């Protein structure tokens, strides 16, 4: 499974370089980019779609999209934000195409994710809590910060929210999760 970079901030240059290498056709670079950012992409998609199968599809589509669009990427020192914007657009498109509103009932805890052998009891508890206790915005903010490694300021830009809103929602969400454990 892909592992998120430990320190996304210091990897900004790396990611920029990798995207440039992807643009020049390097599959090695695409593979490395996937390993560094895949978890963040999948988690963000899952936080929007609340459906592991759809999130997996978006994960796949996202890197194909990156492969296509890497040539037009201009570094603004925000490679992760660029990748997550692609992810967000793919998720919204998927929701729109299917013309479906995601409800709590659609997150079936007994389906694919719940049966995943890679997850232990605590992981399932955490994911269940994220899906059921947090609002859509709270969940996306938490995932973007904790898993994807975005700063609150970048999250505010990505989600078109005020920084103070992101901060307060983040703190509220973490508090909810803390109480859930």
């Amino acid at each position: 499974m892909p592992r998120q970079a430990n320190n996304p901030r210091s990897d900004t240059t790396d990611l920029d370089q990798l995207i440039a290498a992807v643009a020049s056709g390097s599959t090695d670079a695409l593979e490395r980019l996937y390993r560094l950012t895949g978890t963040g992409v999948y988690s963000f998609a899952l936080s929007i779609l609340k459906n592991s199968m759809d999130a997996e599809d978006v994960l796949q589509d996202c890197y194909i999209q990156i492969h296509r669009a890497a040539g037009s990427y201009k570094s603004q020192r925000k490679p992760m934000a660029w990748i997550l914007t692609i992810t967000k657009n793919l998720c919204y498109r998927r929701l729109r195409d299917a013309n479906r509103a995601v409800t709590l009932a659609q997150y079936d805890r007994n389906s694919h994710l719940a049966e995943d052998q890679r997850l232990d009891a605590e992981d399932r508890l955490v994911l269940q809590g994220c899906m059921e206790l947090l609002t859509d915005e709270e969940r996306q903010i938490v995932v973007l910060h904790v898993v994807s490694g975005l700063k609150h300021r970048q999250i505010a830009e990505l989600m078109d929210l005020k920084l103070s809103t992101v901060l307060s929602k983040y703190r509220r969400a973490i508090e909810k999760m803390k109480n859930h454990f």
Partner: protein
Amino acid sequence: MNRTERKIKKAFENATPNVLGPILSQCQQQKGAVSPMKKKSRPLTKFVNIAASLGIVALLFGIGSVAGMLLFPDNPFTPGSSLVEPEKPDGLKGSIDVPAGTTDFEGFNTLPPETLPEEYRTVFHYSYEEAKYIAHHALIEAFPWLQDISHCVISGEYAEGGTPSYIFNIDIGGHEFRISVDEATGNIADSQRLLDGQWVDCAVRFDFITKEDAFNIARGNFSREFDFSDQAIAAGLLQDVTITLDTGVYNIRILYDGIVLTMDLDVITGEILSVNLPMEKDDTISKEAAIKVAMTDAGLYEDYLNGEYQVHCKLFDYDPLPLYYVCFNVMKEDIGYVWAYVIDGIGGEIMASSRDGQYPGDYLISPGTALDRLLDRLQVGFYKVTCLKLNTDAKPYYYIRLQVDGAIYEVEIDAYTGEISNIISGGEIDPPTTIDQEQVIKDAICYTECPDDRIENLTAVLEEYDDGAVWVVRYECPNCVHQFRIHAETGICHSMSSAHKLPGICGIEKAEEIALKDAGVSIESSRFCISTNLRGLEDEPYYVVYFVLRGTEYRRTIDARTGEVLSRDEPVDTYGISEFEATIIALHTNGFTADEVDNLACTQKRFGENNEALSYVVSFSRDGYLYECWIGAGFGEILSIIRTN
């Protein structure tokens, strides 16, 4: 990253599938077909522009921190003839045993040891009072027996000549010292003791975290969320820094791009004692702003400005964020209705609203109306509402959980139309089951990161109480002892205690026993919450025992060696609205006034599976129905309405 964040990160990492193969395969097929994406350019944020203009203000900061001090050019120190070891009055040698300062903590080591630009440097200087604290404590560290003497006189001067410093004359019970503290670094520059009428040098030092270190610790911690790079500082994002030393703790306040960040650090160990991201007082919107949000939403702001409305507005400083509760009466056809809003104290967003009575157009229906709609649909007799709440995150809806003859219904009702928008469940109630020992041990081990094969002395004992059973799980890791109380039916962990295994230190159980005995209480519920942690390992180890009993929170600190109770916090009462307000909210939610009901009563209770929320229970009877309304004691939200006939 804290424990909760780590758990979330781990869960998502483990859930991520590996689809690299299909991606590479598809990319190979599509090679060459590149379609450029349209990119939306973003203007610079308003914050950056404001920050740039405020940068000038930031440059001026700190210049005044040393202004106004008395200047004494002469250094009264005379060179000492010999260096003496600290000595007790009885001739026994004293020892200087000061814990080494440390800045090792998560996240900090990833940063280079940078400092603020020159213009900020005066922030790190020490005031007279701070230097006095350092001088006094350095002396106590060097001569511990001085602690036993209560008579202490300290007078000081500021000497600008050479290296600016403070010079203190300290008289403790007739033992006279002169200590010089460097104004810029806080270090002991010189120390002398009066012996036989002669000033002689003495070994006095105080290892502590400097203000500069403290700032770097804070910056290291906050830089996970805020950019503290040179470029960011040059852009003026860092607007203000204040670091003050107060009784062994550094209070750090950083104004970053309009946001106040605060942190408290132990001055000796550098341990982070508390962190606050947005500080409520400086970042909270004003009361008028909160009223404006509420009244504008109600369409009554102009009337309010004309003095037609009396509005009750109160700020509750809640953790994690402050909330305004705005409440006012609306008269319609000679009938008064209470409208209430809960406003995010930082962002100014409406978190929840309650508008009683009949609403035109796009106004929300009341909770009582939502419940009536559901009951009309179900056509049931005896029922119990276990949860009724308004969710306003997106399209507002009421979530109602209803218990009817052994079945539970969970339903969402459109808060605009009253239509039932989603039936989540309607099944039988599962009988209570007890989690088996194997499962509860597995769960308890999950709470720590100790590998299974390194766990020793594992025990799990089932304790029975009137309201249920609880598993008490205890085990030892190589360095620590852990103890958990896990509810046998719900699996909820109500208590979590951990401590290092050190010789001569009493165990967790003993510390908890002492604390409970001191408070005059005993464990009488399966949901009893107690948390015990060992602190002060570098110096004098002590336990902090925190527990909650019948809605009251207690805290005791226990000397880990002697078992002595070192401090007792008074029971904590942190909640805001009054019984009267809770009663009004309950009555109006159901469409009544106090005159229209019988047997009206209000009591304070705990609510929720974890017993976590303090609430008011307002009960009354009307038309053959008995009403029981649970109202959040924080800002008056409706937690549950139970109506039985």
